[in-house]
């Protein structure tokens, strides 16, 4: 009789293992999705500005202060949801946001910003998406927090949320900057 209960016992053990594994899943996920760029200098680039293509912006300009680089596009649905959060971050005024308009039409992007409000200090037009590839972007939106030394310290995969901004990003800005993090 008892031997027929063995499979049930083994299964119960498996369920316990799976349950514990499931509780750890979010941490593992976080470890997994983290960009390989974290702790490394942000990619080098030079791009024209969206509003005035004659002016260019160089990745060197990111040094000397904290920046949040946000990859977005007008065709990106989630970017629209995210927009509100970016406006809030701008209002807080802790860090300037650099927008990277990814594979987009300039006119559409300009009208988007005039309709929904402009959270960016500067918007760069990455028309062919080459810089986004250097950043390892594969779905907009994504955001990168870059420290005054030009090193990527945090990455948001998908839309920025208020919770993530407070728990993942703000602590970097309030803590004293660690050299070469």
């Amino acid at each position, binding site marked *: 009789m008892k031997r*027929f209960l063995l499979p049930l016992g083994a*299964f119960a053990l498996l*369920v316990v293992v799976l349950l514990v594994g499931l*509780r750890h*899943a979010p941490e593992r996920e976080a470890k997994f999705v983290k960009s390989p760029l974290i702790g490394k200098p942000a990619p080098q680039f030079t791009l024209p500005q969206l509003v005035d293509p004659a002016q260019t912006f160089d990745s060197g300009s990111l040094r000397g202060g904290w920046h949040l680089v946000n990859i977005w596009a007008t065709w990106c*649905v989630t970017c629209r949801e995210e927009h509100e959060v970016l406006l809030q971050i701008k209002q807080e005024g802790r860090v300037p946001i650099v927008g990277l308009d990814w*594979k987009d039409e300039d006119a559409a992007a300009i009208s988007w910003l005039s309709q929904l409000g402009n959270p960016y200090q500067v918007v760069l037009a990455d028309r062919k998406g080459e810089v986004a*590839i250097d950043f390892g972007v*594969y779905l907009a939106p994504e955001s990168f927090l870059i420290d005054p030394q030009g090193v990527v310290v945090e990455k948001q995969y998908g839309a920025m949320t208020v919770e993530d901004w407070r728990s993942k990003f703000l602590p970097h800005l309030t803590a004293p900057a660690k050299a070469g993090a």
Partner: protein
Amino acid sequence: MLVEIGHFAMILALALSATQAFFGLTGAALKRERWMSVATSAVTGQFLFLALGTATLVHAFVVNDFSVKYVANHSNSALPLFYRVAALWGAHEGSLLLWICVLGVWSIAVAWRGAKLPADYLARVLGVLGVVSFGFLLFLLTTSNPFERLLPAAIDGADLNPQLQDFAMAIHPPILYAGYVGMSVSFAFACAAMLEGRRDHLWARWQRPWTVMAWAFLSCGIALGSWWAYYVLGWGGWWAWDPVENASFMPWLAGTALIHSLIVTDKRGLFKSWTLLLSVAVFSLSLLGTFLVRSGVLNSVHSFAADPARGIFILSFLVLMIGGALALYAWRAPSLGSDVGFEMVSRESFILFNNILLAVATAVVFGGTLAPMIADTLGLGTLSVGPPYFNPSFLIPTIPLVALLSVGIHARWRRGQLSLSKQRILGTLAVAVVVALGVVYGIYGSTRLMTPIGAVLGIWIILSSLVDPLLQLRRRIALPVGVIGMTVAHIGVGIFVLGITFVESSTIERDIALARGQSHTIGGYEFRFLGVENMEGPNFDGVRGHVIVTQGNKVVADLFPDKRRYFVQGTVTTKAAIGAQWNRDLLAALGEDLGSNSWSLRLQYRPMIRFVWLGAAIMALGGVLTLFDRRYRTAPVAATASVQTTGEPVQASS
């Protein structure tokens, strides 16, 4: 509006699945015929609503309705129509819907074909299927609704993952799911037998064709997935022991054991409780696969977006279904004795070894798949389990498995008289050794130990599968379809073993930089790089290289490997070009542009890789053939009398 109707249809299907479960199970328990027939009608109704719901979503994909969130996230107006339809199962929500639809098809097939089964048995089977369907529909509607709207609507969609924009990948999920889900039919048959407390073994005959059918689908589905990985991922690998691959492979291994133990239970009334346990185990492994792939407990190259909330749901469902079934097993199995015995050397004992070895093989894969999670949970650090563990460990049970097949195939039911077959066993082995060594050292010149072993085993299986049927044909004894199917399936195993042996031991692979006009020779084939040109597709652009392969002075392959950039997601994919011939593949893939007309290229020579998928396909074909055997066409109740007398034809004749 249409999509809302679809959503509502799914809710009605949920209600009908509950009806099916309740009336099927209680109707059989209370012996109320009207209640039991309600279950059958509920199956039909549920199927219609599932079809309606799915049709509305397919329609949304076809007309590019980007106000549906799922469509907006996984399709695009530039995507060709075929892939817009296939995009339905391109992500978690839609593939779950596909899972449920496939279950609907299986259920209606059982309701229709099962009309000859005893009414209360059929009602219980449908009742269990109703419970499974209810669980998955609830999962879909509460955690993974593909009918959700997106307001405001997107202008265009985010496109289907480019790697899924491929023919094999588009048809791989439906076929794989037909296999996975088919195992729930097998599970339902076993549960129905346990619920009823049957002491006979007639259920095994009823369960057999469904299990074999599901197993054949699973074989094809896994082979298609492997083929896809081989030519789309571009690195020439055909099996990586990735958790998602393992999730489909474990039910296949256990399912292979099950189709064999079912034969013993059906024909000899033995292994009853073991077969029941195995039926539960195969379905558990299918569910476990779903859990592993969709909950985020394991990291895989091709898993779905992970969500622990979904994980909790599947785990709870797993506990209810499998825990319930195993409790039922603990209650019923003790009363299932065997009325007959068998000797040490008999077909029964060989199938017992087959089952033990397949169970060990499943455990090897299971352990390796779950080890990283367990290590991580116990705080032992991040552990990566890959081919260095799987390849050697998997061979430990499988080498004796295929060797015993060649011997056991001559064994008879009940009594051991292998000495009579000694001639055939040694004869086939001698021929296999001569042929194998000739091929290995004459053609491929391999120095590895495993190459001659694999080649001998593969050829030996083919010869020993053929010898008994051929001898019978020579004596003008007609072969039953079941025996033909078995022979074909075992030949498939032999071909599969040969394929793995040669592709693993004699593949040549080189990563090399070539300027336009330069060439490189591997394995007697000269690959000449003729440069690249730009190309444009409907939703991608990129470059296409041209490589000409010559052997001696003859051009044997014209290869156009390409590198595509898909507009919407900006993803770059590498498509290897393959020059295929039955006995070898020549493969070229583009690496990086090194400037001044020079590229890095990956060149490969892979002997007999086709045998791997061909073997799997032939195994599946053999399985399907057995379904046409006479024994399944006879009415099940009438078959009772013939159970003991229907001997194995091989035995009856020799």
